[in-house]
């Protein structure tokens, strides 16, 4: 079970050492992990705690549009929403980032003006990742040079499932380098595991460690294009991984739960899991994100209800 800093240092030396390490990680008992998530989901978050959680959740959203039909107009509308989620209430915090395809990064950046919001771009042949490494790196360079300061890459699930762990690792390392070299500061790298395709919690834990060893700044559940996307137990397993990785190496990695989180109630459950599994060091937009679009409006409706005492209804939050 034991992981030490020394052990981690040699892990990535070869395919064989990677395999030995990842398959030496403690297993995840499916029943137990799901039971723990279900118990945490019964936490009753009320009044001041709920108000805190709702604002925190809003501030952690990567407001996302990833459709073939995306246009500059759509992205500008979303940017306005990201900056002022509730135009009637200036105390409502902005979201963390706007998340778009690479060709709309420049539009997003311009629409956000000088605001300190991040622009995240999916890259690396999102969502399937089925392209050559050259193309993927070009995709990343495109996004970063257009102004993305966060890159959401997908891992090659085919390579992972067929046992080519070194390839998955090296791809992530290469993308990380592309993030750093393509422009100024170096974009923050989120690594999408697509847990719905990895299927087992053991695979999720291994993929998390693989991504973290390769330099991921964040591990992210899903593209949102595969079902199931984020689930509470998958996120719990990933939070255990980042907690253990920090304990072993001293480096903190963030977690992004993406896809399928639509209600404020769900979002609060995720924050409870963050709080009780990883700890309050992760209760910050720098370390935990929601990848979502519809979630924001439900959070806003709950927020309005808490301030006015009545449900406003969907016509009192903006459609974008």
């Amino acid at each position, binding site marked *: 079970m034991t992981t030490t800093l020394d052990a981690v240092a040699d892990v990535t030396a070869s395919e064989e050492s990677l395999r030995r390490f990842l398959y030496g990680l403690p297993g995840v008992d499916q029943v*137990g992990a799901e*039971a723990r998530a279900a118990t945490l989901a019964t*936490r009753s978050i009320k009044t001041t705690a709920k108000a805190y959680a709702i604002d925190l959740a809003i501030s952690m959203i990567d407001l996302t549009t990833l459709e073939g039909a995306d246009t500059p107009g759509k992205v500008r509308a979303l940017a306005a929403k990201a900056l002022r989620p509730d135009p009637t209430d200036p105390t409502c915090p902005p979201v963390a980032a706007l998340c778009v395809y690479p060709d709309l990064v420049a539009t997003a950046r311009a629409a956000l003006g000088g605001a300190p919001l991040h622009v995240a771009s999916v890259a690396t042949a999102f969502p399937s990742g089925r392209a050559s490494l050259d193309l993927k790196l070009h995709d990343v360079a495109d996004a970063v040079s257009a102004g993305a300061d966060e890159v959401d890459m997908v891992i090659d699930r085919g390579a992972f499932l067929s046992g080519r762990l070194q390839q998955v690792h090296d791809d992530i390392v290469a993308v990380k380098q592309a993030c750093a070299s393509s422009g100024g500061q170096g974009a923050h790298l989120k690594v999408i595991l697509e847990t719905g395709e990895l299927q087992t919690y053991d695979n999720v834990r291994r993929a998390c460690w693989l991504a973290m060893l390769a330099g991921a700044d964040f591990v992210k559940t899903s593209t949102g294009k595969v079902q199931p996307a984020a689930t509470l137990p998958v996120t719990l397993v990933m939070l255990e991984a980042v907690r253990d990785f920090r304990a072993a190496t001293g480096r903190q990695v963030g977690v992004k739960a993406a896809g399928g989180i639509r209600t404020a109630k769900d979002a609060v459950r995720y924050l409870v899991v963050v709080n009780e599994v990883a700890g*309050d060091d992760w209760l910050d937009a720098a370390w935990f994100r929601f990848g979502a679009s519809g979630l924001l409006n439900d959070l806003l409706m709950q927020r309005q209800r808490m301030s006015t005492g009545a449900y406003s209804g969907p016509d009192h939050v903006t459609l974008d």
Partner: protein
Amino acid sequence: MGKTFEYAPAPESRNVVDLASSYGLFVGGRFVDPADGTSFKTVNPATEEVLAEVAEAGQADVDAAVAAARRAYDEVWGPMPGRERAKYLFRTARIVQERSRELAVAESLDNGKPIRESRDVDLPLVAAWFFHYAGWADKLEQAGYGPDPQPVGVAGQVIPWNFPLMMLAWKIAPALACGNTVVLKPAETTPLTALLFAEICQQADLPAGVVNILTGAGETGRRLVTHPDIDKVAFTGSTDVGRQIARSLAGTDKRVTLELGGKAANIVFDDAPVDQAVEGIVDGIFFNQGHVCCAGSRLLVQENVHDEVLERLKARMATLRVGDPLDKNTDVGAINSAAQLARIRELSAVGDAEGAERWSAPCALPDHGFWFAPTVFTGVTQAHRIAREEIFGPVLSVLTFRTPAEAVAKANNTPYGLSAGVWTEKGSLILWTAERLRAGVVWANTFNKFDPASPFGGYKESGYGREGGRHGLAGYLR
């Protein structure tokens, strides 16, 4: 870095339960005053507030209750076809479900257990037990106890305070399904849900005398189990009292089942799924404040992973929320009584004196009521009293082992044998270990899971007889 996420109080409403200021005895289908008029108070262990005054049954009351049960057995319940008895049991199960919120609150008030457990564990199991045995009532010929099994007669049942309503269900559901009638005595510190159950019997139109509830202390229990017109005694509680009962019934033709104490080993091998194992250790010993006869009170952890498991366990224990049992976010509630708290403190002091290292979760305890912080003792050996005696509280003793054979030897080296846990990702090791453990229940990669279809009971000084499932019928059939 992030800020602290403080959970605001989320109390379940205590107004959902309407407690009377005083309760009589439930005999022959109605509440009656005790013959000699004595009573005692039941308190909320979380606040020491008096909840209600409860009658104390004397000899005349025991005689009356047994006579009512005998009459109901002879005239109504014994002769009734199983399919008709089943209807009453199904109805009872449904009423329990309908009133489950109220019953859960009453249980947490009287017992001190967190509402999350009474709501999500106790009450669903109570209903499940009645549903399960309702299903058996018209199928007894197929149960494997002969072509025409008959009820035993009148059962005297004495139950403990740790799962008051659940233990009632474990006792009453199979007895009634088989055609017996019962006189049941709940524990003196937790009589309230049994009295609410008496109301449910009335609500279900259960024939008078089929269920009788006598409140009182040990003396009432002694009078009940030794009553000459009782055919069957079922007891759950301490091994000491179990021994006294066995002694007092020796030479009589009364049937007896005893479910007594335990000192269960929870064995964690070095290839265990560590995060879930830590959860299982926590569930094993801190569930219901450790007031669980099958609690995993002895952690046997493979020596090569001891430090890592303990580090993770302590980190997890630090997140346990100890406090108001009615708060929906409470994980660990109040110790059931001052007497039990004194016992836990005494044995913990013995652990200190014997040189074990004590660590308690850093948590603020309320000023009033009976509280004990979740505690773990490391450096414990087989020779320590805290490794041998049942503490019946939130206190875990940690021992180590080197090989599977040593784990089994240490696990079995106890006068008890109620339950055990095995944690490993290796299926063959689970089977190898479970085969060798002398315990009535062996959980693999989980702990403290109950199901009405699964038999439950002990080896050695943990008692005899099985409750639950088809096996649980045996004690109530002849």
